[in-house]
């Protein structure tokens, strides 16, 4: 980690972290509120230094298929977009998952549905963690809540993607993308050589060598018997991810009577609401899922025996609340509070909602 403290936007932090991680290629198409990612990359011109390719494609559909091509070669490749653009990419994401290709996707969400607004939202939760594309697949999903985590999760995303040969997604929103905070960027890493990629990714289609059969990357399988076996392999892999990679943060839960569940920017707002609540004498804590898939059901279930209620706070119509209910499994009260369409709730209105829906209900 570099010692230098910088002030930058979350979007800019992702771009710089990608260059420093030794990413081989970025393919994207501009859309608010994430255009700073491609702007920062273009401005930094890493093709002159690390050799990283940065390309503005003709569309989001082209971008995701360029990612498919680069990932097939075992390269570190990524794309980013915001909600409407991410919808366009869903077919490609399903193909990436079906072909077991590692890559990093970034969705800086905005209000929807449709073209919606350009203001922050968390309404793509279902799309991301329940599969926006077709077929039984899962996306490893990371939800940063600070500019520092935007930088850190680039490396984490690639590590998990390559460990499990599966796409990984940073699911963030316009607040974390646009805000500036202090950040320490990771140290520069050299891009891997072709030989290193051949060693680490024996499946990569980098050109056949005489000692092996051709590698084939495809999600097409006409024999349903074989395709079922493929699906069983995927599902076994997903169970491994669920066993090993759940990440979350517990905040002041030890003595809590009430617990917020919130991710990303909503968790920052809830953190303040906790302070306000405790000033008034209410013992409130928070569970912040860092991975949205795999989801931290167990820790929620453990607290379900101890607390008087959970309030999930989301910038959508109540999506993650379904997973919280699965975790709580009927043991105690679970309610939702949120705003939609690009409106960001304030800490005070979150506290009012906690009192109305949980404490005094």
């Amino acid at each position, binding site marked *: 980690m570099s010692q230098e403290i910088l*002030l930058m936007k979350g979007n800019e932090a992702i771009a710089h972290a990608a260059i420093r991680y030794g990413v081989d290629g970025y393919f994207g198409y501009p859309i608010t509120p994430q255009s700073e990612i491609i702007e920062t990359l273009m401005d930094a011109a890493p093709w002159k230094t690390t050799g990283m390719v940065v390309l503005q494609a003709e569309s989001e559909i082209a971008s995701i298929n360029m990612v498919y091509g680069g990932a097939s070669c075992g390269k570190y490749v990524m794309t980013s977009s915001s909600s409407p653009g991410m919808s366009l990419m869903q077919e490609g994401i399903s193909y990436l998952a079906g072909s077991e290709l590692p890559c990093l996707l970034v969705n800086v969400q905005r209000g929807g549905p449709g073209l919606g607004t350009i203001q922050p939202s968390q309404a793509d939760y279902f799309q991301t963690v329940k599969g926006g594309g077709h077929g039984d697949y899962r996306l490893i999903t990371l939800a940063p809540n600070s500019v520092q985590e935007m930088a850190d999760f680039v490396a984490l995303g690639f590590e998990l993607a390559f460990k499990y040969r599966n796409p990984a997604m940073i699911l963030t929103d316009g607040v974390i993308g646009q*805000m*500036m*905070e202090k950040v320490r960027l990771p140290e520069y890493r050299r891009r891997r050589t072709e030989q290193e990629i051949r060693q680490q990714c024996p499946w990569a289609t980098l050109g056949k060598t005489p000692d092996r059969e051709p590698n084939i990357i495809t999600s097409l399988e006409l024999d349903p018997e074989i395709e079922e076996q493929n699906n069983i392999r995927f599902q076994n892999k997903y169970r491994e991810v669920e066993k090993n990679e759940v990440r979350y943060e517990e905040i002041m839960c030890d003595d809590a009577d009430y617990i917020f569940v919130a991710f990303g920017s909503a968790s*920052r707002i809830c953190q*303040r*609401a906790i302070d306000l609540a405790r000033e008034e004498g209410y013992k409130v804590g928070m569970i912040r899922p860092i991975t949205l898939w795999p989801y931290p059901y167990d820790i929620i279930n453990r607290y379900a025996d101890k607390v008087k209620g959970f309030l999930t706070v989301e910038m959508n119509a109540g999506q993650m609340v379904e997973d919280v209910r699965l975790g709580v499994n009927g043991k105690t009260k679970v309610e939702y509070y949120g705003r939609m369409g690009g409106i960001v709730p*304030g800490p005070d209105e979150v506290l009012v909602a906690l009192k109305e829906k949980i404490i005094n209900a």
Partner: protein
Amino acid sequence: MLQEIVISGFGGQGVLSMGKILAYSGIMEDKEVSWMPAYGPEQRGGTANVTVIIADQPISSPIVSQFDVAIVLNQPSLDKFEDKVKPGGILIYDGYGIHHPPTRKDINVYKIDAMDESMKMSNTKVFNMIVLGGLLKVLPIVKLENVMKGLKKSLPERYHNTLPLNEEAILRGMEIIQLERKAE
């Protein structure tokens, strides 16, 4: 220490960059900072605004609904944020183009004629630095030397020859800001 500040004006007045310089100055003093712009259509024709938080402890929410300080640089901003200053807080406004001055009695109201002053200095670009000077006079959250360091960090090198002019503007702002009404 926790100061939640909103700066609001027309797009192009230097609102966002003033916030950035303030945030950088905070970093120079090892403080925690956050800078959250209201981005998007608001910047075209309406008000551009940014929330800057400077604190000794890690900052929880970058989004707040009430502010310790509101710096408002046009009438729409004044209309939008006067009600959002915490009781006992500070409102700083530029009198230029203001037809309906602030009316609240429970906040400290300061007036700074930075637009007029920048025209006197024949350089309207330093307008936002005059305002920043005014803020630092009434709320010395960061030292001037650290503001200059922050300015140097946030300005591209080709503009570093303007640093003395910016410092002069900050000092002018400190001189011309006036207390209009103390909180009752």
